[in-house]
């Protein structure tokens, strides 16, 4: 795990290998071993819709189902976002990050929010070379509605060295806002969704 000194060194490296967290509104966001991330302004809210089910694996139906069951929302500075118990809202960090090829990262809740019942990320690992905002899957696992506001420090990101430089090969190209999942783009899916063509009886037989 990188210390504050190492994080600052990574942020001062030549541009191509620099750790970028932009905008870093306040230097106090850099803690002893982490950087505080703020909540961004745009959200995708899952709403009740006449969709019988959501099939993220269905390449044909998934995008339309998502559009029908999700709604984009802007919460400008000074306004509030209420997260009800059990509700899922997809948001992002206010900050845009670029990890150099030798650093990976983990995103975690800030403990004060965790104690209030907020889970901020279910996809916590950030690959080396990733460039974009960090998606935050916000869930309220408490019993009372939680009031959130853009700009509040909601998560922290911890960095670590990787053994060798890694070139980012993920699906997300410089995301700037909450994006829909792309599980249906997984290249292995056609295999796993197709029925086996090998008859069950064609296994090895004793001769």
């Amino acid at each position: 795990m990188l210390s504050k000194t190492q994080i600052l060194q990574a942020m001062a490296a030549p541009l191509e290998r620099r750790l970028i967290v932009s905008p870093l509104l306040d230097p106090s966001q850099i803690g002893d071993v982490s950087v505080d991330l703020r909540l961004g302004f745009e959200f995708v809210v899952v709403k009740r819709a006449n969709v019988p089910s959501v099939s993220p694996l269905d390449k044909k139906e998934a995008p339309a189902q998502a559009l029908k069951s999700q709604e984009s929302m802007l919460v400008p500075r000074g306004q509030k976002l209420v997260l009800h118990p059990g509700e899922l809202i997809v948001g992002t960090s206010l900050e845009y990050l670029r990890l150099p090829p030798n650093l990976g990262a983990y995103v975690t809740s800030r403990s004060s929010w965790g104690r209030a019942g907020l889970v901020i990320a279910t996809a916590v690992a950030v690959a080396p070379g990733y460039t974009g905002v960090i998606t935050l899957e916000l869930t309220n696992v408490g019993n009372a509605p939680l009031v959130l506001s853009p700009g509040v420090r909601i998560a922290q990101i911890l960095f670590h060295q990787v053994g060798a430089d890694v070139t980012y090969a993920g699906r997300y190209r410089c995301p700037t806002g909450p994006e829909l999942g792309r599980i249906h783009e997984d290249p292995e899916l056609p295999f796993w969704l197709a029925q086996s063509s090998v008859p069950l009886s064609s296994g090895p037989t004793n001769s």
Partner: protein
Amino acid sequence: MPHFAEADEVRRRSIYLLTSISEQLLSLSARDYPTESPKRFIAYLERLVSGLHRLLLADDNTDTIKLICRFVKDLGSHVRFLETASYPRIPWAVIAPMENLMTSIVPEAEIVLRAQWSWNYRIRQIASLYKEALEALPHEYFNDSVFAANSPAWNVVSLPTMDRGNILMHVILGHEVGHRIADQFLSGEDEQALQQEILALVGDGKWFDINIEQNGPLFAMNIKAALFRQINDMRSGGLQELISDIVAFHLFGPSFLFAIRESSLDSVLDGVPIPRSYHPPWRYRYRQVIREYQRQGYPPLLASLGGSLILDTIRQACLRQLEDIVDLTQDTTDIQAIQGDKIATRAYQLIERVVPQIPSFVESKLQGLAFVPNEFKVMQEQLLSRIALGIPPAEVDGKVVNFRDVILAGWLYRISRLPVPFSAAAVVSVEDDITLQRLVHKALEYTNTIEEYGRWHNQEKGD
């Protein structure tokens, strides 16, 4: 059996329509808007609706009630302006800086920015439209809206929905607000002198029709009046566009030149001005803007960019594009087309006399608001390097930059047709354009946030 009470029926119908507008305004007030401006416009419309309602109940004059009913139908169609001013119908981060810039230029104006389905940028003066329509009605019902002493001059500015994500193109909004400065120029002209000039150009009208006097003096007078009107309209329509172009160039620099070139790629360059809009030929417009580009010293600034493969490629591509536009303006086929039209020839004689005055007039009106390319080389090189890495071009050495510098960096990168993020092996596609637009939009969000946070932070420290 009672007679059909027409006034009561029209009154009932008008009240029904007003109720419908009120419901729609209530529903629209619950939407997310990027600034407070649309909500203030909703409140303004609600006051107007309330005034109309009160007047309908108080007035028994059938003509007045019919006039109100017709106005209410028009008013109802304006609710659509708000529908497309809300998130996510518009590129929200570009709205606040554009709105601020526009209201700085025309301080008495209030602006609602919205998307429209047709591909066009447009500015509508809504408040003056309402004032004109309601002039004949008792003003006391509208003293808190249209006829209030400090009533804001509401303008609805539209951008095309199809291009809403194309942030770079929205510098054309500078042209739209430029129309208000063009209005000031035209209203400040010596009308009598202009009238004499046009009358002299109309003359006996034989240049238009050699047989003008054959059908009697009344017919000849009608023809000459029509010629007067057309020359005057073509002149003022042409100047409206040319002045607005110069305003936009002063506000956005080369970004505006790139934007009008891209937006007119599918247009005829030498089209003779036609009635209603009377837009000058595109080539003629490019010529005026290119003159400003050269006069304001941009060519050496752009030539100073470089020092890496990416920056050298960008410099070469941008200079090549601008030289191509210069080449286009050296061709005079637009002027030949104008000279081939008897009315346009005369209107453009008058325009040519005014054109040299436009830059100094615009400068005097935009004091302190014009785009100044401070530290051009250092700033643009850093912003372009960020784009090449796939990072929003919002900061230079940790300091926030003006939103117009951000947009210029976006244009310079775009003209070079390099992939985003840069990769020597990648093939450029529309996806790169989309990514670039998103990064520029994100940078605008950041410049707003950094600036506001910095202001708050300094205040806190001061306290």
